[in-house]
């Protein structure tokens, strides 16, 4: 009873950390969020995305072909709650909260130890990466939830072999995880094979029992395989994020080129493998994991890691504990090791230096290992220095509490200031202002090149304009078109494109929204009298200027 209450308390803590000021932090909908919410509304209202594709299996979005789960779930929530910005964050938060008991359940089944399970749930509840990703709309959190549940159910089968329903439910959950997050579609079959191999003595005894569920799983997986293998958009997305896109690797392969075609190809292949392996290993860099991996500031090493830095100590203790008890926990150890090694593969083969969102399953396992480490320390204290038991508890709680407050400080204060550009702040304000002035101008032109320190091109701008203008998705489906000018997207009286000042200044009754990167600051200064509004980044530096051309 006491343990259930504790778990309940932990879940409450997790809920508070995930929903507190959810509407305001992150400070604005990111391009991913705004594209998904507007497509979700479009689906709910018309059965099509904003480009007119009926119930798509991949959303074109901003040509990044998003997996469908998150958008469809959001459209269901939209039907219930109607249009509020927060609805896009609800699925992430719900699954983020559900992940806490799921991890408790998984750990309990894996180690058969309630204390470790409770510690895992607690670490999960306060874990920086889980809070961070739960509060953003991201399909990886629902994906990992179903994955954890799926494997927990399979572990139950290995312990209570008589009931085959655990296999059915487990596989069903894993298949759901694969549909939700496409990178799981590669990872889960590999991990599942390893799992079956580890527990082969159990599954081989009852081959008959697993054959039918496996066939059932394969049938359910068939549509997903067809999507992945035959859908050009899905392949396009995979190619777009593949490590081959990396500039440094490209340079390496250029260096290899010689007259001998075969040798060039072999060495290029080796170079790609070397590069990928190195990237894979770099995901285990302690500075990334415990220092600044969440990339929440621009201050070099000062920031927030994926995990709390104090977890490092317990993680090492956890690993030592498992190694020392390898004779008792051989299968569990092998499964954990496989989970970590396989889980990092997506980050090793994609073009980004570090992509924490692709490695969530590994970080979740690190949280569990942290819990094992805490357990080990407390067992040690219990055995050797019993009188200090409560001091050890208090010390551990203080350490985590200190780091939690640090994370919250970074999250609510520094992160918005430092990284507002990365969620395209203040595009919402720009969109709302444009709609406010809709009737005053014949044309509204917006050049989304902006930046605090260097220019970047904002994406999904028509989504921001459509969503914040309550613009009917049906109308958007009809109005949206690609223009003739560079980067031009047109709908209604809006033109989102590159601004050419010398031409555009000659327009009449037009609202131009530009930044210092799209129009020379000297020109902006010279036209100060025409600026009707300045938009600022969250740290109060200017982002855009609305210039009225009479």
């Amino acid at each position, binding site marked *: 009873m006491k343990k259930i209450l504790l778990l309940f308390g932990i879940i409450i803590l997790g809920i508070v950390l995930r929903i507190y000021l959810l509407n305001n932090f992150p400070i604005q909908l990111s391009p991913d969020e705004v594209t998904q919410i507007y497509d979700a509304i479009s689906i709910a209202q018309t059965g099509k995305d904003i480009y007119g594709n009926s119930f798509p299996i991949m959303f074109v979005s901003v040509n990044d072909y998003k997996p469908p789960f998150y958008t469809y779930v959001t459209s269901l929530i939209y039907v219930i709650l109607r249009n509020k910005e927060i609805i896009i964050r609800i699925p992430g938060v719900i699954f983020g909260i559900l992940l806490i008991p799921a991890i408790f359940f998984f750990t309990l089944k894996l180690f058969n130890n309630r204390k470790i399970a409770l510690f895992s749930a607690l670490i999960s509840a306060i874990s920086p990466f889980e809070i961070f990703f739960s509060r953003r709309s991201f399909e990886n959190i629902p994906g990992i939830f179903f994955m954890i549940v799926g494997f927990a159910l399979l572990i139950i089968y290995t312990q209570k072999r008589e009931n085959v329903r655990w296999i059915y439910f487990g596989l069903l959950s894993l298949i759901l995880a694969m549909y939700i997050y496409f990178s799981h579609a590669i990872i889960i079959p590999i991990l599942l094979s390893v799992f079956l191999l580890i527990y082969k003595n159990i599954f081989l005894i009852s081959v008959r029992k697993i054959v039918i569920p496996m066939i059932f799983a394969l049938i359910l997986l068939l549509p997903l395989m067809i999507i992945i293998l035959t859908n050009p958009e899905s392949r396009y997305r995979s190619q777009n994020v593949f490590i081959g896109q990396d500039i440094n690797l490209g340079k*390496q392969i250029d*260096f*290899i080129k*010689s007259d001998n075609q075969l040798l060039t190809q072999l*060495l290029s292949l*080796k*170079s790609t493998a*070397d*590069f990928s*392996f*190195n*990237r*894979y*290993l*770099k995901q*285990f*860099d*302690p*500075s990334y994991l*415990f*220092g600044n991996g969440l990339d929440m*500031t621009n*201050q*070099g*090493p*000062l920031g927030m890691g994926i995990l709390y*830095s104090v977890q*490092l100590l317990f993680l090492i203790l956890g690993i*030592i504990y498992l*190694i*020392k008890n*390898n004779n008792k926990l051989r299968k569990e150890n092998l499964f954990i090791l496989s989970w970590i090694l396989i889980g990092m593969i997506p980050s090793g083969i994609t073009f980004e230096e570090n992509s924490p969102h692709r490695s969530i399953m590994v970080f979740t396992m690190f949280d569990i290992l942290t819990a094992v480490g805490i357990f080990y320390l407390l067992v040690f204290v219990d055995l050797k220095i019993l009188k200090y038991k409560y001091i050890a508890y208090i010390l551990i709680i203080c350490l985590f509490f200190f780091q939690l*407050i*640090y994370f919250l*400080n*970074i999250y*609510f*204060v*520094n992160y918005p*200031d*430092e990284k507002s550009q990365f969620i395209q702040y203040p595009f919402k304000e720009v969109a709302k202002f444009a709609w406010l002035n809709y009737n005053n101008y014949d044309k509204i032109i917006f050049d989304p090149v902006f930046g605090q320190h260097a220019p970047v091109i904002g994406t999904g701008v028509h989504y921001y304009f459509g969503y914040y203008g309550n613009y009917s998705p049906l109308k958007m489906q009809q109005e949206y078109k690609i223009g003739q000018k560079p980067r031009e997207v047109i709908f209604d009286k809006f033109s989102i494109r590159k601004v050419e000042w010398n031409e555009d200044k000659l327009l009449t009754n037009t609202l131009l929204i530009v930044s210092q990167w799209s129009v020379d600051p000297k020109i902006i200064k010279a036209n100060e009298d025409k600026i009707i509004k300045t938009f600022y980044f969250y*740290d109060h530096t200017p982002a855009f200027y609305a210039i009225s051309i009479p």
Partner: protein
Amino acid sequence: MNRSRKKVYLLIIILVAFLIRIYNFSFPFFTADEARIAYRGLILAETGRDELGRPFPLIFNSLEDYQLPVTSYLTACGILLFGKSDFGVRFPFIILGTILIFLIYKITKILAKDENLGLVSAIIASFSPTLIFLSKTPNEPIILVFLLTLLFYIMLQKQINTIIFVVISILIVFTAKQSWLILPPFVFTFFYFFQEEMLFKKKVFLTGIVLLISVIAFTSFLIIPQGKRSLMENNFSIFDDITIKNGITRLRGQGIEAGWSPLLERIYFNKTVLLPIGFLHWLSNIQPSVYFGQFDNSGLFNYSRIGVFSKVLIIPAFLGIFFLIQEGSKRQRFLLVMILVVTFPAIFIFPKMNQLLISTTIPFLIIIMAFGFKKLPKLYTVIILLVMAIEVIINILFLNTEAKNTNNLRPSWIVPIISKIYDVSKTKETAVSDDIVGDIIPYIGWQTKIMPDVPLNIDNFPYKVRQTSFKNIVLHGSDDKKNICKSKKDMDLLVSNRDLRLIEDEFGLQNNEIFKDNLNQKRATFLSGKLCIE
């Protein structure tokens, strides 16, 4: 396997290692610093003075930092023995690298009490890309690794010979600055794990000696006018890091502005953050990607696209750690602790990775890997070692990419340029752009073997020395004006693209001799008697 057969195997392994190190002798081309050491070695061997004209100095200079003496004098020894050639410079380091394999074999044998594991460790050491690479150029890391391993071996003997112990310790502190922080904890930790039978007094005595030697070296260095600055910039850079300083102020300011308690902000953002940052940076120095992914992408301390070891060795490495935690004796676990002890100064060297410190862990990691093979069936051992050998050999054989990767750091294309400069400067003054490579004077010195005018008019302990003239050769720095001295007699010029751009329009300088680099890009143009630059 009988013992004599094993000895034959060991001999074969060492011979193969020697051949690998001697193969493609001219690779890698020297960096400016290595060329400086080579040239210094030549002058020391021939005149007893360094390139700045100081007789037998204990502190040398370079473009980056002060240099301790062992590397330069060892190079001088090689030149004394084998003459003024690349061979003379590289040979002592090849020998050290080869003997190192024997030492690793011996230590493994002592710790594992298993000759087969000794042989395995010797094979791994023979094929370590980093050890191969470092054995081919004059550098501090290979000497430090060798001396630390030798000290470890000496200390493992039943009776530690105090004189040898002291001599090696002194050599270590005169090899690299980082050793001052490594040596005392190394010896202290060793005595914690080993030599239970040794008298406590002797342990204290030996630890005290190395502590004293290190402290003397450290304080003597501080006496040098720019010693403190050199340490701060190169060995304790974390305290000087402007990103961290500004970051603390900025993040704290944001919190206060947002209404958070200034006290809370001060608690979270203050100079104590250096501790976790340094600590994590230290651990990043010894992360798996450094050992099995990429050790040094610049190509200074290793082939630029490979780790310290072949990728496949990650398997025995983790099995070795696993073995030591689960079954290892106290003495064997010393290896794990040692990796942390010898790299801990990396805490202070932020944000750069410190390859010298990482290098010192190589022997310990090799022995750990050997333990890892204990967990593997023989067939797997053979397969892993074979895959390792194949990967390393491919890297050694196909070096075309390496030459391109290190186009600026190891400019093998500079040789014809130096020949040209040498030829034309014999008869008249020659101006050379100073950005053709980072520091061209050491290359001119080493490639041409011209003896310098000594003594140069400089103080005894200059910091970050850059020579701008050498005999008839004058370096021409960056300028945004065309400093053409029309009144003077025209001179021979070897100009970089930077300087050529300034003058080519006006003077219509076409059809001149050009020099290209490894990427087939134009790097220098020879203008004979057309202009005078001041």
